[in-house]
């Protein structure tokens, strides 16, 4: 989902910066407040950030004969919400833009929007909706992480289509061209990411369900049911 350095023309790169910047700034504020209020969340925050680090470094081959990478943002979004997750995504995106020539500083705004904001927002909403609908906790996590990953790549396709409308067919035609690369390649990767995230979430539930309950990510009754099923 990295739009490469210099590949977004004026005014698009500015627009995506303008949209992303306030979100990340508020994310930093929320993160600081959360750490100050409850230091016990710090290790979980580190784990969620590290999860983004690991997953976004793995370029995996897909059924289309090309490679892409998962985002890892679903997990942070479920536990901490999209605001704070956007900050985690920015850290990774800056590292990759500066040291790996992956993505870029001029496209950082757009890449932050797709990976750090749009994906996590979708993941967060899916998780809330799925838990409210009474789906099994790990199924809800799976769906949230899978769709967060996939949505990220759809948004990248939209961003590129808006900036490069086709001569015939306009934005819609070029969206199809970009989505043909990103959306299809990403389907198997998104499913794998969903599974790995669900598994990771299971371990966090086993170890620190108390923090998850206090942060209102999971209800006490759900935890109780899960623990009874294991026992």
């Amino acid at each position, binding site marked *: 989902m990295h739009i*490469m350095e210099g590949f977004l023309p004026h005014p698009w790169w500015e627009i995506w910066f303008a949209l992303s910047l306030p979100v990340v700034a508020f994310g930093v504020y929320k993160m600081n407040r959360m750490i100050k209020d409850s230091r016990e969340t710090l290790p979980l925050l580190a784990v969620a950030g590290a999860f983004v680090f*690991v997953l976004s470094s793995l370029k995996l081959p897909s059924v289309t004969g*090309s490679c892409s990478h998962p985002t890892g943002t679903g997990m942070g979004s479920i536990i901490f919400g999209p605001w704070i997750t956007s900050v985690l995504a920015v850290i990774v995106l800056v590292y990759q833009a500066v040291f790996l020539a992956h*993505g870029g500083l*001029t496209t950082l705004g757009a890449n932050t929007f797709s990976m750090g904001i749009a994906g996590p927002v979708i993941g967060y909403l899916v998780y809330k909706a799925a838990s409210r609908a009474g789906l099994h906790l790990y199924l809800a996590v799976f769906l949230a992480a899978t769709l967060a990953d996939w949505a990220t790549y759809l948004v990248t396709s939209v961003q590129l289509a808006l900036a*490069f409308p086709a*001569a015939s067919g306009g934005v819609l035609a070029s969206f199809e061209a970009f989505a043909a690369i990103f959306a299809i390649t990403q389907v198997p990767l998104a499913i794998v990411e969903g599974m790995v995230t669900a598994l990771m979430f299971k371990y966090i539930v086993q170890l620190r369900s108390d923090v998850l309950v206090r942060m209102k990510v999971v209800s006490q009754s759900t935890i109780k049911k899960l623990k009874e*099923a294991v026992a």
Partner: protein
Amino acid sequence: MKIKLELLTLGVVVLFIAAFAYVSSSGNHEWSGADGQAKDVISILTGGTYIPWFQSIYQPPSGEIESLLFALQAAVGSLIIGYFLGYYRAMAKIKAGEAVQKGEGKSDA
């Protein structure tokens, strides 16, 4: 639910590898990055007229060094995850041990 999720994840990963093996064996693929392919589409859409207006400030000088930096990223992430999960696990054990010693400990941490 005890190890079901692990098995399910393993199953999905095996399917993923099988898909890779199948696609690999059934034709020639470059396995290039999707990000790079988007660049080709841009070049087709604009008739090759688009010139990126900014260059990366640093390019890893070779594929090896690029892999190194990616591996470093994954290693740092794994280290952090492993450290904290291990820390939590040991803490839970210690707390459980103390609870047993006291006879009836408070289970809520």
